[in-house]
């Protein structure tokens, strides 16, 4: 087995900057292919670019199988929703989901949004769970669902939201808060329209 790995390491070095069904992989060092499983490993990391979605992944360690998954550690992901950094990351092509641990996210709506876990769905919906924190707007929550297409974010469970000298708290486990981003301003409402709640709340169960 060991000589097989050595062989494909050599082949990868020859095949630098090759495309893989929409992905362009740029290893930072070696790229290893396990022929038995079809899994590529970039032990010193590299960059993967999805030319179709504009996804750019940079990581210290990457493992992927073409058309199936990408796993990364110490990753930075630039997407149209914003920029993510994550301690670890796993992309599944079917269904099109991106799971992250120790995630930090910045976009035009949120600055320095962090959470223990994150899930990015293909419907342009981001789900964050576990010690969700944001510096602007100042938010602390347990669960946050961001609908980037509609400039809305739904907070579920107890939360703290600060605007200027005013601090808003949701004190109950079933608290809800809808943040709407409009013209650089944030509108907060605890009375969430049923249509929005029914659409966004189910996403929380996917993580």
């Amino acid at each position, binding site marked *: 087995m060991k000589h097989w790995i050595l062989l494909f390491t050599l082949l990868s070095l020859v095949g630098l900057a090759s495309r893989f069904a929409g992905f362009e992989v740029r290893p930072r060092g070696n790229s290893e292919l396990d022929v038995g499983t079809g899994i590529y490993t970039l032990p010193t990391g590299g960059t993967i670019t999805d030319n179709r979605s504009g996804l750019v992944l940079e990581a210290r360690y990457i493992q992927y199988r073409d058309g199936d998954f990408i796993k990364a550690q110490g990753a930075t992901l630039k997407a149209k929703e914003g920029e993510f950094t994550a301690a670890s990351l796993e992309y599944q092509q079917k269904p099109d989901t991106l799971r992250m641990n120790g995630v930090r996210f910045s976009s035009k709506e949120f600055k320095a949004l962090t959470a223990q876990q994150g899930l990015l769905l293909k419907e342009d919906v981001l789900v964050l769970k576990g010690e969700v924190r944001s510096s602007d707007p100042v938010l602390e929550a347990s669960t946050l669902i961001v609908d980037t297409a509609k400039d809305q974010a739904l907070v579920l469970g107890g939360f703290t939201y600060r605007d200027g*000298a*005013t601090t808003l708290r949701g004190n109950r486990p079933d608290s809800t808060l809808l943040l709407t981003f409009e013209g650089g301003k944030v509108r907060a409402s605890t009375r969430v329209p049923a249509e929005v709640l029914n659409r966004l709340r189910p996403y929380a169960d996917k993580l």
Partner: protein
Amino acid sequence: MGRLEHQAALSGASVRGATRPPRPWPPALWLRCTLSPLLPFLTLLVTSLAWATPSNPTPCAEQPYTLETPEGLAGGGNLEFDGEVAIFSDGACLETQGLRLQAPSLRYDQASGELTAPQIAVETPRYRIWAEEGRIKDQVLQARGIRATTCRCGDNLRLLSETLRFDTQSGEMVLEESRLEVYEFGLARFGELRLDPNQPLGESLGLTPTGAEAPLALPVRFDFDQGLNVGLSEFPLPDGTRSGRFSTRLTLLGLRLGSPDPILRLGLATQEKNRRASLQLDRKPSGFASRGEVVDGPLFFVHDSERGRYAFGLQQAFALGRFTLVPYAWAAQDWRDGTPATQEQGLAAGAELRYAFEVQEGPFRFRLEPFGVLGFYNQPQQYLAYGGQAEGRYEGDFTLRVGYTWAIESTPGRFWLERREATQKLSASLRFQGLGLEAQHDFLKAQTEASLRVGFEQDYGEVWAQLHTCWSCVGKTLSNGRDDWERRELVLGFTPVPLSCTYDLNLTPFLGYDLLRQGVSRWGLELRYADCCFIWRLGYQEIRLAQHPGEAANGKLTFGLEIR
């Protein structure tokens, strides 16, 4: 030990009231209240509480959503906030220093820092207030269309007002153009009424002496003591000033009616800062009697026609560090033994000098206050008196006090004003949990008094026993035609916990036994009933064997009313 102290000990309620802080209103008490034996009132109680209790009693911090604002903590069922204006709906509240506000909705403007709400209900430690609308800014609540009450339920005692201004920082509450109503009967109108939200209404109105914990006593007297006593006693009259305090009081009393010696008393008293005046006229079968005083700064005029005492003069105190110098001068008349035969008239001038020394070290405290009076008359006579008071006190697990009071007169003073009666008294007291021991020896009278009180505190009240003894008592009482130089009286009583429930009642009984004369010395029973706004008192006390020179064997029926 003075007679007054002894009487206070006998009426357990006043002793307890003076030493025990007001009890809080624990939730468990609600249960006990609802188990009140007065079942016929239960339905009414529930009905009353139903509308008296705020519609949303949940603490503001436990509301589903809260908003921390510079004005306090706001909360409510739902909230819309666009970064500038926050609107609470589905029930809203605000908690800030000294008040709790509830309203159906509440609007907070972050830019101006202003909170506005319609139909507000405000609670302070002593008041419940309703207003048509209220606005809070810079920690000040301003509201209009005011109804305020101190009642636990209902508002049979209420203040109606156009506007209210409540500074939550200073704790000052001002009602403008208000009127006081009892059972919808208007009692008084005020231009500007200042209330302390933490103090009883009686104190804010000037009906209760400042600092006294006692609730407002009804200024109507109705009792039986050697005859019927009925009328107005110190009845407050609003004087129309902007202060809103009652400073003028009217007394119109019939005393001992039905007895051979009835008295009709008319009195008027008024008080302002540094000025006070009072006059009391008694119409008796033997003629008229009057007493009164007028004090304006250092000037005063006092008189008591029955004792032949009249004086006009001035006196002023000057404090110089620990020294206090009180120079005086007056023209006076006095009957030295209470009869015209010993009448003295003339001028007097002099000064009193006092020195107050006090030191405290941990639980120990020592106080020494010597004094001297030097006076001159328009006769070749001078007056010199000196003496003082020394007191040591330990306040720790137990309280021990030892004091000595003495005064020496070179020659008897001519007038009662400058006179310092010669005295030498040693007194001591010890208090430890439910045990109280007091003793006093008067060296000049060679008289010793002692009192031992033992109390057993229970959840429902205190059962107590008091033994009062006196050896070589001066001012003897007579029984069976002989002087009583010794007294031994044992009094047993029960003092229930103060009424805290609504539609509740309690009984305060006591029974005294004279151990020397082998008979019941006194007994009494007081019934107290609490409704939403008042505590009604009906009591009867009878002295069968007098224990003090000032006591006479008789019965006394009392009726009283207090604002809760």
